[in-house]
């Protein structure tokens, strides 16, 4: 988070914490007490843990996996202190989340291997793709990169205009062919201009599409392929945007998008509400794909680099709708 602090975004950290004030009925303490000196976890504690994980959208399968891991650890290690136990619980969950990949750093100032570094942004309808692109372009720009955007959503009403406003906010150039243009042609055009103009980072927006729509998914495959014709290995990143309030369907989304465009990272948006976004744990684990960013609001600075430990901590903090 170094960079964000430097840029004066430390506030955001508070913003996330604000919502996390109410602890989830002191679960961690309770769990600690119930376990000290034992080699088996109480059913009551497991029930509580189950409830916390399920209501965070972690899903039954991953929840059972976490419980299994905790039980194994408890049987093996036998605990002495509750703080140690809390640590282990968090460790086990954190361990399911994949770490960022060094060749596709999430820190904006880091050096990028390719020039231009091409990022394709995909996801189902309304999850926050365009907004996330706006925020990312700002971050990269502030980190001294030359950024360029491509208006690859030529379908939805007002989509090009929306991205245009973001490009103005971040003060980065936008390549567009207007509404109704062939999105693959826009993608090609964007990457080609970025190459000739010496841009460092290219972000290409795409229309929201449900993962079960075969034709639309095929179109996405094509968008991806044409990029590789202009710049070797492009897109270097395929960012799948997931809405934190989405339940188990997010897993289907991740599977389907990966199958077609090989997702390399996740962005989890709308974490400024009360949804926990727990589904990413299972997705990250099963598909071996890291969560890179989180969205915590609608403003340009409302983006954070994903921090596994803080995310897991947040699962155990209760936010009650309406209480502030």
């Amino acid at each position, binding site marked *: 988070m170094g960079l964000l602090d430097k840029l004066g975004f430390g506030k955001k950290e508070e913003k996330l914490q604000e*919502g996390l004030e109410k602890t989830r009925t002191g679960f961690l303490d309770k769990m600690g007490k119930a376990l000290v000196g034992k080699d088996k976890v109480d059913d009551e504690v497991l029930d509580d843990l189950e*409830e916390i994980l*399920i*209501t*965070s*959208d972690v*899903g*039954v399968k991953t929840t059972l996996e976490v419980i299994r891991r905790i039980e194994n650890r408890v049987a093996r290690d036998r605990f002495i202190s509750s703080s140690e136990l809390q640590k282990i619980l968090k460790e086990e969950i954190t361990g399911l989340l994949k770490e960022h990949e060094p060749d596709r750093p999430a820190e904006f100032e880091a050096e990028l291997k390719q020039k231009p570094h091409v990022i394709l942004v995909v996801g*189902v*309808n*309304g*999850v*926050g793709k365009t907004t996330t692109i*706006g925020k990312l372009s700002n971050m990269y720009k502030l980190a001294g990169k030359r950024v360029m955007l491509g208006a690859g959503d030529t*379908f*939805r*009403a*007002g*989509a090009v*205009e*929306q991205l*245009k*406003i*973001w490009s103005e*906010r971040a003060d980065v150039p936008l390549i567009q062919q207007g509404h109704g243009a062939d999105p693959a042609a826009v993608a090609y055009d964007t990457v080609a201009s970025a190459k000739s103009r010496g841009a460092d980072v290219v972000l290409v927006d795409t229309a929201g599409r*449900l*993962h*079960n*729509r*075969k034709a639309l998914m095929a179109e996405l495959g094509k968008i991806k392929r044409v990029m590789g014709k202009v710049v070797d290995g492009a897109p270097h990143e395929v960012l799948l945007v997931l*809405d934190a*309030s*989405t*339940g*188990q*369907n*997010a*897993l*289907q989304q991740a*599977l389907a998008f990966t199958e077609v465009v090989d997702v390399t990272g996740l962005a989890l948006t*709308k974490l*400024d*509400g*009360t*949804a*926990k976004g727990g*589904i990413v744990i299972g997705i990250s684990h099963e598909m071996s794909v890291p969560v890179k960013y989180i969205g915590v609001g*609608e403003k340009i600075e409302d983006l954070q680099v994903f921090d596994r430990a803080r995310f897991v901590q947040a699962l155990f903090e209760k*936010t*009650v*709708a*309406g209480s*502030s």
Partner: protein
Amino acid sequence: MFEDLSSKLENAFKSVTGQARLSDINVAETVREIRRALLDADVNYEVARSITSKVKEKALGQGVVASVTPGQQFTKIVYDELAWVLGEEKEEITFSDKPPTVILIAGLQGSGKTTFSAKLAKWLKEQGKTPMLAAADVYRPAAVDQLKTLGGQIDIPVYAIKEKDAGRVATEAVAEAKKNARDVLIIDTAGRMHVDEYMMNEVADIKKSVNATEVLFVVDSMTGQDAVNTAKEFNEQIDFDGVVLTKLDGDTRGGAAISIKTVVNKSIKFISTGEDMDSISPFYPDRMAQRILGMGDVVSLVERAQQQYDEVQARKLQSKISSDTFNLEDFYGQLQQVKKMGSMKDLVGMIPGMSKQLGDTEIDDESLKPIEAVINSMTIEERRRPQLINGSRRKRIAKGSGTSVKEVNDLLKQFNQMKKMMKTMTKMNKMGRAMEGLKNMTGQQKIN
């Protein structure tokens, strides 16, 4: 990925054979399966718990219905419970007797409010209303552009102003609607988080100032556990009149519908099933219950089959099949049975896994027509003894039915396959399976 609940339950029951009562089987394990299926479908944790405890109560001690398996019976109990929670029948929106009727649209970011506002306008216009739209989202980049574009597509006026004042847009739009004799005003608002006090106050204020006739809460059907929190909070702040469930064209189970209905008890009035302006329809609780269970409609298939199917006829059919005398005449009779039970599409949808298997192939009642025509062009003798149908007869039948020889060939081939298959089916009184055979057949007919 997700197994159908009904097939899961069938599996759970497989190990226990010959039981006479539901209480004989392992109810606890079954209830666990049901709970898991509900959670997999995104039904809220607490809500799922209360549903399973009710189901358990009902299941215990219930006598086994002879003609259905315990798995099917259990599924039906769960289904009944879900359908009951979701509400009895579709509810309409209210219109004001002092026009304009003001409909306020609210919800979280990206849930589909703007798209739905435009669709609703089009839908109402087609019913003879003269709607107008108001662009009261003054925050999201290009939100007004989006609504104006959609308004242009469906030829419905959109009221918007330059100033970023949502309250003003709304009140002015009401006056504008009155002035232009527009009888319905639909106000699109910005997406907002239920925990955002300022924004929640804004929409509550708009509701008051425009004296909204109908407030609709738009929810993404893919929403998970948090649906209860958002619905509760929106309901407390704006006391909405109905729910709109969007993006149901996806493959989400949509358990959020159950959660929301349970915590705020407001009916779901519309569903949205696509990005185009026509993908809007009223809400049917029974279909939603089926969807959440991911079971197709085993239940109503069983029910309808029992209603429509004459026991005597069934027994006759069974003996015909086992004695290998099942012929095209019987088949034709069966087709008519199917038709009596409902449309082909409905029937296919009712069989778990079937719609998936058929992919995008459209099965409609039309696809039965050529089959009927072919059979109709046969002589009684030919129907009773299909083996008589040689080359020249095929030509004659094709000509008479306005089909091709290939189609006649296909039908005969498939009829033979089906006959074979039916013979191997042991329990012929299981109407469901016979239906499946039939469905397979007509499905192939269309694909070939």
